[in-house]
Structure formats: structure tokens, C-alpha cells
């Protein structure tokens, strides 16, 4: 940072150009291998050109606008995405680019990941119950914008709902704000008694809350035996009103340009940008620096006069706030809320996004969120059909077996100083290989069924070889490599120091 602005770092420039070049060649070869060279249409080259414009030039040395150039280009691309997504080329293995409605889901999950990043990435509090906040947000939208309470007849700003429809019908915009604040309040209530705990214990308590709240949602069609139908039990609450403004209902859209999907997409993008803006500003604020101090060393931070409880509670409340907004928006988009949506899996899913991308670094978290949400929505199904159409059953099982043995060999290298344990790994690896031979995985394979196994493997590989995540913040990476963090979230229990 102390470097003069106009000074261009040529080594970094060369490095980035080289990487970009290699990436471009690989992508072109892969596309060509998939469909032949005739399939290399213009969109492939446009895509590469835009990537190069974002990645290669030394934007950081451009005065004034340089700081915002990359983010600005990315935002412009994101906003115009609905116009060109279906004209883009087909990616090998993964198939077409995600559709706009998938994009909405991705945006919501990125938003939650950015929210969770405040708790886990900045403040270093492992939260395994983030889904509870998402659930509260979703139910706020469900209660106050549906026919769930037929005795009430309250209308306020809802678009596309007749005056005679029973139930609460409050404008979704207001509900988003209300959901955010209510969830933040619940975050404080949950946080106050539990944030005294450290590390694993905190994780377990949050996990407990994350399990209890969905169960309450599931059982509250007869609210604690009073006969009051609060959540409609396992059947969930549906339909939920859509947002809208100036008489345009998001559910129906308006004309060929303002389609329903695009409206939801742009609004979601706007909410995400708001979340990112808040997250970045919070990180650089006094509060954010206190969070990072607590993450790095709680005792030292306390000694320096950081009020532990208040700071941690703020982290919890801020993270919960965005979780609540995302939950309410998602409920409105799906027009439904079911207790089955709020299982522990979702908490782990969001946590995976944060960890995969790189805890504490907002761009990493955005990448992790986008990638995993895309895999969840489209990617796994697409790659599954690709596998089914490209492999014979024997070939696929051999591939899986080879990958497995490769993993075992990698582990052998990793554990080279522990021979007998490595030997054990070899034996179990071979046994597992035998397992594939005796009971081969049948084709066609239903890849999404193994979703969490695949996520598990991805995480495992990332944790083994790059524990700081794919795109880490410099500071966080330094913590992992210098062992500054006294309680790392992922203990590398390996040859005690």
C-alpha cells in the first residue's frame, strides 16, 4: 500500500497474464474437446476477453477509479446477465450457464454466506445453527404476507392481493426490514447466554438452536397443545405474496422486458450489493477491527479493552440480520416455507461456502457461495447427466477407484512420517477399492443424491491442501500458516508440535 500509485508491478502483471493465458487455452481446449472446434463460437471469446479485462490489467495502480474498477465491471456483468445468459457457450461437464431463476437462488445463498462470514470469518465464532436465522426470516414473510391467519384482515402495501383476501398482507419490502431486525434480535437473545462459551461448545450450542427451531416450526400447527396453528406444521405455509412496486407484481411481471425472473434477480442482486457494502464497511469499522482482534486472540483483545460480550453479540446480530433478510426474500421468491427447508444440512451448506471460498475474505465467500449454490441447483444434475452419457459403468467405476487410490496415495505422501498409520490407510484404501469392484456404483448415477458427499470431499481436499480457503484474505492466510490462531476452526491434528 505504501507503494506509489503509478508504479506498476510488472512481475505481478506478467504472472497474471500467464495464468490468464493458461486458463484461456485450457478452457478453449476443453470446449473444443467436448463439441469439436466448430463449437467455439464468439461467446467463448467474449467470455475470455471480459475475464481478462477484469483479471489482468493492474487496476490497483490506476488512480481514483482503480479501486472500484474490478467490482464495477463485475456488477455491470451481473446486472446484464439476464440478457445474455442463454446465448453463452456450453461449459464442458457442467453444461449451460445457470438460468436466471437459478441466479436468484444463488444470490440468496451468497447473501447468507456473506452474513455468516461476519460471524465465522470476521469474529471467528463457529456457528452451526445459522439456518435458524434463515428460518425466522422466512416465517416472518410467511406469517405477514399470506392467508395463514384467516381471522385477521390486515392489508398494507401488498401488491396483487385483493382487499377481501383474509390474513395479514404487509408489503414484502417492509417485511424484509422487519425480518432483518427481528432476526437480529433473536440473534442477540440466543447470543447473550451462549457467547461466553468458546470454540466447540459454542458450535454445539448453536447447533442445538439450529435443531430446536425447525422442530418447533414442524410441531407448531398445534402450538404447544393450545390448538393455535402457528406454522401449519410440516405442510408449510404457501402461497406467500410476491413483492411489487408501482402496481407491478413480481409474480406476473410486466411485459416481455420486466419478467418475473428478472425482477426477482435484479432485486436479489440489489439486496446482495447492499449486504456486501454493509459487510465491507463493517469490516473496516472500529467494530470490525474488534471482531478480527477477537478472532486472532480473544485474551489479548480483552486485555486491550475490547468488550468481548458486546462485540461478539454485535457480530451475531449483524450476521443474523442478513440471514433474516435473505430468508424472507427467498420465502417470497419460492412463495412457500416448509420446516423441511431448515435442516442442519443447510447450516453446513452455508458454512461450506464460507470455508471453501476463504473465511473472512468477502470475494472468496461470494465465489464459494456462487459455486456451491450453483452446484446444488444445476451443476450436479448437469454433470451427472454428462457422466451418464460419457461413461460406461465399468469405466466409471474404474475412474472412481483410480481417484480413490489417488486420494490414498496423496494421503500417504501427506502422512509420510507415520508409516504404520499410512499402511493402515493403504489397506483401507485397497479394501474400499475392492468395495467398488464387488458392488460397483450403478449407472445411470443420480449425482445430486450424493451432494453432501461431494461437498464433503471438496471440503476435505481444500482443508488438507489449502486450509485458508481458495481465495483467502491475506490476514487469515497468515494466521493459518504462522499458527497465530490459538483455536483454529479446523485443527490440523498432525504430529503434535
Amino acid at each position, binding site marked *: 500500500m505504501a507503494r506509489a500509485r503509478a508504479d506498476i508491478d510488472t512481475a505481478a502483471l506478467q504472472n497474471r497474464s500467464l495464468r490468464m493465458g493458461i486458463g484461456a487455452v485450457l478452457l478453449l481446449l476443453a470446449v473444443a474437446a467436448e463439441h469439436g472446434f466448430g463449437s467455439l463460437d464468439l461467446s467463448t471469446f467474449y467470455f475470455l476477453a471480459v475475464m481478462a479485462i477484469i483479471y489482468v490489467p493492474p487496476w490497483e495502480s490506476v488512480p481514483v477509479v482503480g479501486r472500484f474498477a474490478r467490482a464495477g465491471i463485475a456488477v455491470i456483468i451481473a446486472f446484464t446477465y439476464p440478457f445474455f445468459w442463454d446465448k453463452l457457450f456450453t461449459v464442458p461437464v457442467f453444461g449451460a450457464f445457470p438460468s436466471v431463476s437459478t441466479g436468484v437462488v444463488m444470490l440468496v445463498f451468497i447473501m447468507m454466506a456473506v452474513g455468516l462470514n461476519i460471524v465465522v470469518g470476521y469474529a471467528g465464532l463457529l456457528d452451526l445453527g445459522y439456518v435458524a436465522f434463515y428460518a425466522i426470516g422466512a416465517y416472518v414473510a410467511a406469517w405477514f404476507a399470506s392467508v395463514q391467519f384467516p381471522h385477521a384482515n390486515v392489508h398494507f402495501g401488498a401488491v396483487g392481493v385483493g382487499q377481501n383476501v383474509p390474513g395479514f398482507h404487509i408489503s414484502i419490502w417492509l417485511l424484509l426490514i422487519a425480518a432483518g431486525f427481528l432476526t437480529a434480535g433473536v440473534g442477540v437473545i440466543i447470543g447473550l447466554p*451462549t457467547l461466553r462459551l468458546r470454540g466447540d461448545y459454542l458450535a*454445539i450450542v448453536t447447533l442445538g438452536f439450529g435443531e430446536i427451531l425447525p422442530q418447533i416450526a414442524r410441531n407448531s400447527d398445534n402450538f404447544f397443545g393450545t390448538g393455535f396453528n402457528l406454522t401449519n406444521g410440516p405442510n408449510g405455509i404457501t402461497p406467500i405474496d410476491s413483492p411489487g412496486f408501482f402496481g407491478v407484481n413480481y409474480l406476473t411481471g410486466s411485459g416481455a422486458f420486466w419478467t418475473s425472473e428478472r425482477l426477482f434477480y435484479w432485486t436479489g442482486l440489489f439486496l446482495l450489493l447492499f449486504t456486501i457494502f454493509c459487510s465491507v464497511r463493517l469490516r473496516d469499522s472500529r467494530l470490525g477491527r474488534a471482531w478480527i482482534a477477537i478472532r486472532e486472540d480473544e485474551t489479548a483483545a480483552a486485555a486491550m479493552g475490547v468488550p468481548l460480550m458486546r462485540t461478539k453479540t454485535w457480530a451475531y446480530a449483524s450476521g443474523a440480520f442478513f440471514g433474516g433478510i435473505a430468508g424472507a426474500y427467498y420465502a417470497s421468491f419460492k412463495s412457500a416455507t416448509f420446516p423441511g427447508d431448515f435442516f442442519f444440512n443447510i447450516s453446513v451448506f452455508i*458454512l461450506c461456502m464460507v470455508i471453501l471460498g476463504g473465511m473472512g475474505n468477502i470475494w472468496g465467500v461470494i465465489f464459494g457461495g456462487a459455486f456451491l449454490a450453483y452446484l446444488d441447483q444445476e451443476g450436479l444434475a448437469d454433470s451427472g447427466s454428462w457422466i451418464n452419457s460419457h461413461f460406461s459403468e465399468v469405466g466409471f467405476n474404474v475412474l472412481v477407484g483410480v481417484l480413490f487410490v489417488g486420494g490414498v496415495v496423496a494421503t500417504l505422501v501427506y502422512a509420510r512420517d507415520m508409516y504404520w498409520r499410512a499402511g493402515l490407510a493403504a489397506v483401507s484404501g485397497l479394501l474400499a477399492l475392492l468395495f467398488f469392484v464387488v458392488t460397483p456404483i450403478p449407472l445411470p448415477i443420480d449425482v445430486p443424491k450424493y451432494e453432501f458427499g461431494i461437498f464433503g470431499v471438496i471440503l476435505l481436499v481444500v482443508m488438507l491442501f489449502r486450509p485458508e480457503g481458495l481465495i483467502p484474505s491475506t490476514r487469515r492466510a497468515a494466521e493459518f500458516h504462522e499458527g497465530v490462531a490459538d483455536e483454529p476452526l479446523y485443527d490440523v491434528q498432525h504430529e503434535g508440535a
Partner: protein
Amino acid sequence: MVTEASRQPLAATRRLRPSFTAVAGTALVLLMLVWLGINFYKTPSDFVQIFLIGFTLGALYALIALGYTLVYGILELINFAHGDVFMLGSMMAVTVVGTTLFDLHQGRVWYVLWPLVIVALLICMAFCGLLNVTVELIAYRRLRSFILQNVGLAWKGPNYVQTASVLPKGNVFSTHGVTYTWEKLIVLIVTVPVLLVLVWLVQRTRQGKAMRATAQDTDAAAMMGINVNRTISFTFLIAGALAGAAGLLYALYAGSVRFDQGFQLGLIAFTAAVFGGIGNLPGAVLGALLIGLIQAFNEGLSWHAPGSDWTQSIVFALLILILVFRPEGLLGERTPEGG
């Protein structure tokens, strides 16, 4: 006597501070006792029956809880994969028990049946023990339990798998409306000797001594010439073996297994371990028995019981309360590994 008397007021003033928690806790326990008493008064035979179910369930949980507590005691790490190791153990049990060997001897005389059950038990224990060691070796980290869960999913499919029934039909005893079946008795038949062996292993053997030493102070143990890594692996082996035994018993007891049972049961067992004081072996057994009883009473009793819909919430609420108000658990921190 004089000193005792003079200490009394001091002790009283000292006790003032945590009094709210203590009073609230005592009130809660008393309320529960009253509720149990009324239930006992109303339906005595049901009550005894449910007590037996709860005790059996508790013994099963104890086996899993011990796995958590052993690993925590030595590494101060929560082995999140333990529940899924248990799940795979029960799948192994289903496979083993479903083989023709067992099919042929179904309903045969006891001296053929019981050795077979013991063989099945040993297979499951060895399988889970090795699996747990491998898990520890490849990645001692959280969240990878999903991989194991998917292995279970790939192995037996997403539906409940029925266990072949190998145990003798009929009741062990049936008096005054209280019945006790072989499926339940076998849990106790197996658990008690396994626990005794565990106590012997930890208390009397060289390896157990090494375990206790490592749990107390890893560095000091290493300096005394204990192979810490091997001790850790050994602990995982034992924990896995216990999970394997629990897997077999669960498969026999519940009659069906499913790929996602490990997470739920694992959490309940973990709660039991925390309840008794994590890292404390007798504590884990005590906590597990109490949790088993709580679950059975909650699901079985007829008078004002919340019912099975709420079991999980009650267990987790208990977990949160313990962690917040008494993180050291019921038996406290006697020694890190108990014993």
C-alpha cells in the same frame, strides 16, 4: 465440631451467588419427579415397562457416548463423525446378520446362536474400530461426516433396512403387565461386559495407562516415552469398536437402520457425554442412562408427556442448559479421562 459450626455461615454466604441457578435447577428436577410420581401412580405397570425401555436405550447411548468422551478426553476435540461411524457399524451389522450363515441358524439352540452373535459383534467392532482410525488418519476435521453418511446412503439406499431377526422370539419375562423382550435384554447382556472390559483396559493395562497419561498432558506423556500418536490411534480404535458394538445392538434392537440415523443418535449421545461431564467415563454412562430414561418417559408416559415430536427439542434444550449453566457436567472434572 466447633470449626464446622463456625464455617457454616461462611458456606451459606458463599452459596448465595449461584443460588438462582441452583434453585431453578432443583425446582425443575422436583417438578419432573412429581410428574413421574403422578404417572407412576396412574399407570404403574406402564411406568416400570417404560423405565426398562429407557434403561436399555440408555445403555445403548452409553456405548456411543463413551466414544465421544474418550476422544474428547485425549484430544479435546469433538469427533463429529462418530455418529456416522456408528451408523456404518449398524449397516455392517445388518449385512453380517443377513448372511446365510445366520439365516441357517435362525431360531436354533442357544449354543449355536450366541457364539454367532458374538462373532457378529466382533466383526462390527473391528470394522468400526479400523474405520475410526482411518478417519482420524485421513482427516481429523469436522464436517466430513457427510462423506460417511453418503457411504451409508450408497451402501443401503435411502430407505430403512430391516434387520433379519435372529434373536429368540418371545419375552424374557412377563409379570403384572410388564414385559421384557430379548431384543432389549441383549443390549444389557452385551453392554455390561463391554463396559467392564473398557474399565479394565483403561485402568489396568499399559496402553490404558498411556491413554490416561496422554489425556492429562500430551507433552509430558511424550517426554516420558509414550508414543502419543499411537495412543491417539488406539483411543480412536476403542471408540470405534464401541460404536461398532452399539451399531450391532441398535440394528438388533430397533430392527431397522437408515443412512441418516447416525447424526441424530450421535447428537443425543454427545448430549449424554456432555451431560455427564465430557471426558469423564462414568459420567458418560450416567448421562446416557439419564438421557435414555428422559427419552423413554417423554415418549411413553401417558399423563402430560410432550410426546416423541419433542424428544429432540428436549434433549437439545437440556444440552444448551447444561453447556450454559454447568459446562463441566454432572460429575464435573475429576480427572480428564475419568476412570
